[in-house]
């Protein structure tokens, strides 16, 4: 059976680490062996420490971005994980400025036979206006969203229905083909639908 690879992308602070922690818990309950690859720009991989504290098997790729200069490291790390742990699923957390399609190119270049699950991009609805503002960093967020096959609107427990509906419409205009789900990773809301959409 092919190794399933799930990319959990999204801008800084969108909730990638929390979502991965909750997803691994869900998948573990289903009897699946899950490992994590976490990418951070800096030399001190804080997220890797969090995953390790939670008892997860994690490989860190630090000191750069896996969507560009460290794409080869990503491919090699997937192969290493397959050889050492033989997991059913690998969850990948790119750093928050990575471009998802570029990460997928790196994944596809691995020597391991893999099944790429739909690209998941998280969107922090509590920071929606600022993160979509093109005068600031909106073009990165919009590029990430445009690459998504699933957009998970995260932190839905912190906003009202009209805000959710408003930004759901905005996201549909940014990416017309992506499946949009609503989640609160922290509160574990909407994760069943997310897991179904990811086909893991």
């Amino acid at each position, binding site marked *: 059976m092919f190794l399933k690879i799930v990319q959990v992308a999204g801008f800084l602070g969108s909730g990638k680490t929390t979502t991965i922690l909750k997803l691994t818990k869900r998948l573990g309950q289903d009897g699946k062996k899950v490992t994590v690859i976490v990418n951070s720009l800096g*030399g001190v991989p804080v997220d890797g420490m969090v995953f390790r504290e939670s008892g997860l098997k994690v490989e860190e790729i630090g000191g750069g971005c896996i969507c560009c200069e460290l794409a080869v490291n990503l491919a090699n790390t997937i192969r290493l994980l397959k050889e050492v742990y033989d997991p059913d699923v690998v969850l990948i957390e790119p750093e928050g400025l990575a471009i998802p399609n570029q990460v997928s190119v790196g994944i596809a270049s691995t020597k391991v036979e893999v099944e790429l699950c739909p690209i998941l991009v998280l969107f922090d609805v509590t920071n929606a206006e600022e993160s979509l503002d093109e005068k600031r960093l909106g073009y990165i967020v919009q590029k990430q969203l445009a690459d998504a096959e699933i957009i998970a609107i995260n932190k839905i427990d912190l906003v009202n229905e009209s805000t959710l509906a408003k930004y759901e419409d905005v996201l549909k205009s940014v990416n017309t083909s992506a499946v949009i789900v609503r989640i609160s990773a922290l509160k574990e809301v909407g994760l069943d639908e997310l897991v179904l959409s990811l086909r893991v």
Partner: protein
Amino acid sequence: MKHKFKYLSFGALFRLFFEQQLDTVSSERMMTELVRNMASDFERNMGSGGLLRIKAFLKCPAGYIKADVTGVKKGVFVESTVKERVKRAELAINIVTQEIEKEEVEAIALRAMEKILTPLNGRFSPVKTHKNAAEPWSRVFHV
């Protein structure tokens, strides 16, 4: 493929020691204040529209405390598994930012450490993360 803009990432690891043990409330508050203090200082240096992400992770013998902030307007998010008093710990800090020099980032982080730890009778010393590193900080540029 290269990113279109330049940003910096800094990471550092410190050993902490407290003369008097910190209780769980105080240690969580320390992490919150540390990250909040850094974020405020960054805001003064770079304005409120820039990119800022700070993650701090305190590894104690029994558990951890993670504190992080995105941007400068949002609050600090704290998660703790620590249920015992803290005397020694390791603190990892990761900062992603823009439009600011490396020396300023270091100064902001160290100033916050001094300000928050001193009233708690806490001391800190940097840990080199790489064998040959001349300094604890690491950085990455993307253009």
